[in-house]
């Protein structure tokens, strides 16, 4: 499903997770790959524990981090697209 500001996102259950320094690492057992999340990505990942609309997620990040709004939007979309491609999230709406 294409991502839009109205899409609702929730992360899939992911039992294999560990923190290594500032990086949150996920292991996808079925596909056999690791996924490393930096500090901002880890914050997004935490927030995706419960369903959230993309628009609200962007607003939240704009409140927490300095940066150009358009750039934050673009980076959030790019990151979510990556998570979706790796089957780490469910997208609806």
């Amino acid at each position, binding site marked *: 499903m294409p991502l839009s500001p109205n899409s609702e996102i929730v992360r899939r259950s992911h039992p*294999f997770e*560990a*923190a*290594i*320094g500032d990086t949150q*690492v996920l*292991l996808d*057992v079925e596909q056999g790959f*690791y996924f*490393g999340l930096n500090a901002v990505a880890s914050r997004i990942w935490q927030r995706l524990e419960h369903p959230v609309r993309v628009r609200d997620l962007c607003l939240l990040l704009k409140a927490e981090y300095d940066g150009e709004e358009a750039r934050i939007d673009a980076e959030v979309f790019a990151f979510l697209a990556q998570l979706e491609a790796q089957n780490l999230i469910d997208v609806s709406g």
Partner: protein
Amino acid sequence: MTDRLLCGWRVRSAVALPELLEWQGDDRPPDLTVRLGAVDDSLPGGRTISPWLQIDGTGTGLLEVPMVGRFLVQRSGDITIAPQPEAREAEIRLFLLGSVLGLVCHQRGLLPLHASSVVIEDGAVAFCGHSGMGKSTLALRFAQRGHAVVSDDVCVLDTGSPAPVRPSFPRLKLWRDALEDAALPTEGLERNRRGQDKFHFIEPQAGVRGPIPLRALFMLRRAKHGEQEGIERLSAPLDILAALETGTFRMQIGRALGAEKALFQAHALIAGTVPVYTLRRLPDAPPGRWLDAIAATVRG
């Protein structure tokens, strides 16, 4: 026969295991019991994990090594060996203290690294790499400088925090040229396999009994054409995890036994707490060349 010590376990074995230290602990029942007996050639309900290994739903493993014998390894710690008539004792011990030890670790949720290790600065320093990369030769060179040998081939770690090494035994498997380079005679040493120019050298220095912290890990690599030799610390978490996965002894057995989560947590714990380096060497680098640099790196 006297009970022996292996990775903190009390071992009672019908096969003499001279490379293991003697058990000097309490009077607990044996953790591992090795018997000789009949073993069927197939495991009921067993899945084939590799050409030599089947594992059933209870986690029992059947290892069949051509010309050596069958090893039935139960989670309880009962190990039954049916040797082939032509098998030498050294060969049986080789697989018992190699493949079978790795299987026992996976059954018990421990992390076996494919590494030789020695004591440097009160901790274990492990040399991890594929066969032929010089793990045992490096350990020998450190042993000759007075460092105790913690493991050869399989270095066993607890998966709790902080992950300590459970010392295995001070035996090193060495090719004739590695022994000769180190000015050690091969006379009187047992051969690893029939017709193979590799020998079992038992380090005369006392081995290590109790658990010790893992101080550093060196991934042994061969410098490819045009690459510089040297020691480099891995810093990206995903690179460290990938190296640890490659360095885990028979990772696919751990997966088959459902130990994947414990292995991942153990890898992550090491990645977060223990420095991991690559040591890149030219194929013809003299074995003694990197000892000082390794020791200096460990001391920091």
